[in-house]
């Protein structure tokens, strides 16, 4: 792989806190190596801002290996930037060329208020899980792991849904700020497994109610969420969510009142 250096122009959203109005600020960033990650480029810029006596740009990040779901930048109009199936932290600078201008914004959604600069509050996603995204099994209650065989295909599909990292890119990419892919992935993961069966109806109903309460929009199935998802979670999970919801609606006696 050939390495090269580049000079870039960055337009970054700066916002002091939730209440104050934000604005774009322009920075020229010279001498960026193609081997750097996108966040390492921000490290370089921030180090310079600190040396100049300015405040560095705040952004969420932690594992920097694409699995914790903390990083969350809207880059040139795309959640997590130009590479498919990639988080911001795994995006590398060889995706860009000398002279490029890069626009960086926070996730934009009513349910994700900005805390500072590129940092948003995504705790609404935790509350959707708390509404039912689990199997109610207390520690110590379990039977032997092999006493309940699971078809390999189903286990694999459940795993693919469970691979969601909760970053919120699906919401940020959606014109309606819908959280259907996030919620659908969790409902699918648990509905596909026999262990998840006892709470199948209440789970989907309660999670959707919480999703609506948090102010996420409706799904109009434009599938931008799947395109933006760094874990390439399939929109089939939204179809499954809808099917689970209908099933609960038509068969539940208590849950739907």
């Amino acid at each position, binding site marked *: *792989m050939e390495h090269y250096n580049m000079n870039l122009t960055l337009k970054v959203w700066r916002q002091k806190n939730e209440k104050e109005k934000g604005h774009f600020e322009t920075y020229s960033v010279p001498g960026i190596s193609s081997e750097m990650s996108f966040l390492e480029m921000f490290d370089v810029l921030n180090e310079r801002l600190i040396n100049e006596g300015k405040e560095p740009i705040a952004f969420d990040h932690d594992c920097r290996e*694409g*699995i914790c779901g903390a990083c969350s930048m809207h880059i040139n109009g795309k959640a997590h930037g130009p590479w498919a199936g990639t988080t911001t932290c795994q995006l590398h600078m060889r995706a860009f060329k000398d002279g490029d201008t890069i626009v960086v914004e926070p996730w934009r959604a009513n349910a994700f208020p900005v805390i500072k600069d590129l940092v948003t509050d995504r705790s609404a996603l935790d509350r959707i899980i708390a509404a039912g995204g689990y*199997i109610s099994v207390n520690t110590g209650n379990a039977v032997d792991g092999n006493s309940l065989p699971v078809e390999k295909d189903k286990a694999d599909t459940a795993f693919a849904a469970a691979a969601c990292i909760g970053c919120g890119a699906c919401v940020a990419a959606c014109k309606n700020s819908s959280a259907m892919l996030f919620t659908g992935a969790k409902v699918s993961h648990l509905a596909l497994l026999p262990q998840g069966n006892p709470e199948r109806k209440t789970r989907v109903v309660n999670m959707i109610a919480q999703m609506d309460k948090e102010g996420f929009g409706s799904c109009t199935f434009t599938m931008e969420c799947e395109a933006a998802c760094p874990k390439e979670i399939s929109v089939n999970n939204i179809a499954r969510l809808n099917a689970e919801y209908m099933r609960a609606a038509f068969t539940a006696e208590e849950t739907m009142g």
Partner: protein
Amino acid sequence: MLDAKIPKGPLDQKWSTYKSTCKLVNPANKRKLEVIVIGTGLAGASAASSLGELGYKVKAFCFQDSPRRAHSIAAQGGINAAKNYQNDGDSVYRLFYDTIKGGDYRSREGNVHRLAEVSASIIDQCVAQGVPFAREYGGLLSNRSFGGTQVQRTFYAAGQTGQQLLIGAYQSLERQVALGNVKMYSRHEMLEIVMIDGKARGIIARNLVTGELERHFGHAVLLCSGGYGNVFYLSTNAMGSNVTAAWKAHKRGAYFGNPCFTQIHPTCIPVSGEHQSKLTLMSESLRNDGRIWVPLKQNDTRRPSEIPETERDYYLERRYPAFGNLVPRDVASRAAKERCDAGYGVGSSRQAVYLDYAFAIDRYGMIECNKQGINNPTKEQLRHYGVEVVKEKYGNLFDMYEKITGENPYEIPMRIYPAVHYTMGGLWVDYELQTNIPGLYALGEANFSDHGANRLGASALMQGLADGYFVIPYTIGNYLADEIRTTNIPTSHPAFEEAEKNTRDRIEKLMSIQGTESPESFHKRLGKIMWDKCGMARNAQGLQEAITEIRALREEFWRNVKVTGAINEFNPELDKAGRVADFIELGELMCMDALNRKESCGGHFREESQTEEGEALRDDDNFMFVSAWEFKEGYNWELHKEALEYEVVHPSQRSYK
């Protein structure tokens, strides 16, 4: 000598005896008892949810924006359990024995046996929660092997096992949050332990969004705050992983156990330049199928494909025929360093070795072709089917490698090099996971207890969940049973006042310095000292130099650090400055511990103590103990020792040949 309070009786009955004789707390009293849990990784989330289920009132804290992001999420390879589903001779005893041996005879028999005993229940619990472990076509659970063992006992979910286990624990935690048994404080950092009458009674936490300091009372405090590998700056830890919670406890009197025991993981993506902010692990499970080699000729600059079989050195297979590429991590790391130092390294930095999948692709290709009934398959067919199998097993790891390096590992062998990964050391705890401070517990990587001088692969997840799901629910009751008469202490108590004032003074001091160098820059400098002088190989002279340099760095930090922004706002620079200050102090203690331990054992390699073949040489006569350091004013430490007694296993020179 410290007393670890290991129950009397035969090794395999200690835990069951303990469980049937420890004190219990009745359900009505549990509702009155408050427990604080710091950290929401595998240990913290499993402890918080299990204690919530039991009826305790739990407050859980994490610095991340969600408990699901704790760094356990990044564990790749798997979790060990003595299920013997493969009928290959595994047992609780074998898992216990492998772990003791893998730890180079520097861990406690009692703790490790308990860990092996509860391992099977962990898998059952996780399956019940819906953790989608890998399965065979018959629907049963699949296993693979890991370093330092000769059986297949590792359960896994592709290369994302930590993620799936943590999501299982996180979901259980969120369920308890919904039920009101656990109150969750995200974006909060613990900055002080509050001590009243010699017992841990609460914490001072900082709300990282508003910058406000908060006081929280608890009848007990559980530190589940992970390891301290980031003291090296570059490590496989997350950027936010830090020692601060454990260090605050240490400075309030909790002993720090074996701080120098650091695990350097053999298979990580090599450093690419000065800008590097972290290192990425390539799971040890890759050593199952991949073969590690370097050129036979020094300074060979040919492409790997141009180097014929006869001119390659599969040095692990050569040196350790019995375990080959599956030797434990410390052994594999040192062997890679030895080859690179001797001039056989590859890649532009010459600080890398190859991890080659060509053979595995051929081998799996042949098996698949047989299944498909293709006789005499072509090279292309072999490759096609082989790549498919490798993709299914390790696809996410290969993708990650390609994103970072820009090279396709299905075509070109991966370049790997050792990197700091895990810390076996941590807060000293007794058998009940209680530190020497009553009411203060440490779980998971934050404690020192189960891995001795080297941790085996797929054992960190096992220990974190063992501590949280199956150990602490029993041992905490033994303490809290005597606390049922302690009513909640109001946080206006002078001890809370004093702790908050200390914290505030320190934050104001950090902000007031307004020097010229960023916290990040100090962190990098500390990391370089630690890696060069307290890394994969250590000697007395280097360690003494390191101590002097770190003291000077500490002095300079408190004179010249520059923290931007303000106190009462979201300010990651301030968070970072506090963590770096603690890392600097810890670095000094690690070097002291490494200097004091004149033997080599596990991941701690003292150049003065090696066999003729360059293997780690233990000194059981003089160092068969746990080092537990007590902090004293003025950065002096007093060494306490806990003798390690082996009743069942007979320590011997560890051999994987």
